[in-house]
C-alpha cells in the first residue's frame, strides 16, 4: 500500500524529478533512459511508495535498481541512436556547435570515469552530489553509515584520478 498521498505526489515530483533525472543521466550516461526511469519511479511511488518523508531516498534507490536492471538485461532497444555519440537534446534551439562539442567530450570523459567505478561506488558518489546524507547513502547502497565514508573516499579518488584536472580544451 502506498504511503504517499496522491495529492502529495505532485509536490514530490516538483521537488525531486529534476535531481533524480540528473542523477540518473549521470549514472547511466543516457538522458533518454534517465527520463524514462524517472517516470517509472514516480509511478511506482504512487503504487507502493513509502511514507512521504522516506520518498526521496526511496525514489533514488528504486530508480537506481531500475537502471541497473536495465543495464543488466541489456535488452533495451536503442530506439534512436546517433552512432558513437548518441545523446538526445530536448533543447530547442541547440547550443552553439563548439559548446555542444565541448559538452559531448566532457560527457564522454565523465561517463568513462563513472563507468569504471563499481555500481555501489558510482551510486554513492552521485548520491553525495545530490546532497544525500551518509546515512541515506549507506541505506541505499546497502552498507553501514560507518563504512560509507570509505566507499565514498575510494570512489572520489578513483574518479578524480581518471578524470584528471579540468582542461580548457574539453
Amino acid at each position, binding site marked *: *500500500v*502506498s*504511503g504517499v*498521498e*496522491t*495529492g502529495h505526489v*505532485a509536490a514530490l*515530483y*516538483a521537488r525531486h524529478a*529534476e535531481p533524480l533525472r*540528473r542523477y540518473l543521466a*549521470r549514472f547511466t550516461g543516457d*538522458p*533518454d533512459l*534517465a*527520463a524514462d526511469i524517472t*517516470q517509472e519511479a514516480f*509511478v511506482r511511488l*504512487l*503504487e507502493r511508495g*513509502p*511514507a*512521504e*518523508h*522516506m520518498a526521496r531516498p526511496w525514489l533514488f534507490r528504486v530508480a537506481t535498481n531500475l537502471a541497473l536492471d536495465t543495464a543488466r538485461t541489456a535488452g533495451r532497444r*536503442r*530506439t*534512436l541512436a*546517433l*552512432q558513437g*555519440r548518441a545523446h538526445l*537534446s*530536448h*533543447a*530547442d*534551439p*541547440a547550443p552553439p556547435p563548439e559548446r555542444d562539442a565541448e*559538452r*559531448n567530450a*566532457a560527457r564522454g*570523459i*565523465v561517463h568513462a*570515469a563513472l563507468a569504471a567505478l563499481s555500481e555501489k561506488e558510482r551510486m554513492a558518489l552521485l548520491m*553525495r*552530489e545530490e546532497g544525500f546524507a*551518509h546515512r541515506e547513502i549507506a541505506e541505499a547502497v546497502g552498507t553501514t553509515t*560507518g*563504512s*560509507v*565514508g570509505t566507499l565514498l*573516499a*575510494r570512489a*572520489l*579518488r578513483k*574518479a*578524480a584520478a581518471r*578524470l*584528471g584536472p*579540468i582542461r580548457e580544451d*574539453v
Partner: protein
Amino acid sequence: MNGSSAGAARHLDDAVLLRLLDGEHSPGEDYARDAHVGACTRCAAALAQLRDDAATVRGWLERAAFEDALPPAAALPHGHPLAQAPAHGPSELAGGVRGTDRHGRGGAPRSARSWHDTAPWLRAAAILLLIAAPVAAIPAVREFVTGAITDLRGAPQVEAPASAPITTAPSIIRFQPAGGEFLVRIDAAQAAGTLRIVPAPGREAVLQLHDGGVAGPVIAADAVHLRNAAAATDSYVLYLPPTVTRVTVLIAGRTVAVLPATALTAAVEVPLR
C-alpha cells in the same frame, strides 16, 4: 585515531575524513578531530587531497552538464488531480495509519484515504495524468518509436528549428534493416527535409531533418529533428514498430518517396534527385 579511537597519535581513516569533509561528524567528534588535523600534516594533506578530488569530480560533472540534455521537468498543471492537496476531514484522518519504513519504524501519520482506497477510475486517471504531464515535455515520437503508439494528431505543433541554408542536398537515402531496426543513411550534408513515418491511418510521426551543422537529434513534441553534420555522411538508427505501414520521405516539404514498411525488410535505396 582510527574512526572510533580518540588517540591523537593515530591517523584518521577515510570514513572519518569523509565525515569531516561533508560536515557529518557529530559535535562530540569535532574538537578532537579538528585538533588532530590541525596538528597532523599527514591527515591534513589527506583531507586536502580528498577535498581536491571532490572538487575535481564536481567540476567535471558540472562541465558535462548532463542535465542540459534532459527535457525540463513539467510541473503538474494547476487543477491537476494529483496537484490537489488532500482535503480530508477529521473523520477521515481519524482512521489514519502510521506509515512504516522498511525497518518497521513508524513514519509520519497519513490519511486513511490512501491511494488504494481511491476509486479505480481515479487511480487510472491519476497515473495517466502523472505520466502525461512530464511526457508532455518529452516527445510523443518516443512513444511511437518504442512501439507504444499514441495518436499524434493532437500533439502540439512545434516550430521546427531554423535551418541553415541548404548547401548540399542529399542525393540518396539508404534504409538498411538491422534486426527490428533500420539504419537511415544519408549521403550528404543534410538539407532541410522531412522523413515522415506513418504508422497507421490517421496517425503519424514526423522525423524532420534539418541542416543544422550539429550532430545530435533534437526531440520536439511531434518530431525528431535529426541534425546532420555539415559535409558529413551520417547514420541514424530508428526502430520501426510492427504497426508501421509505410514510410514517406519528404525533402523540403516535397514527397520524394513512399515506401511500404514491408519494403524495409530489405535494404532500400531512395534516390532523391
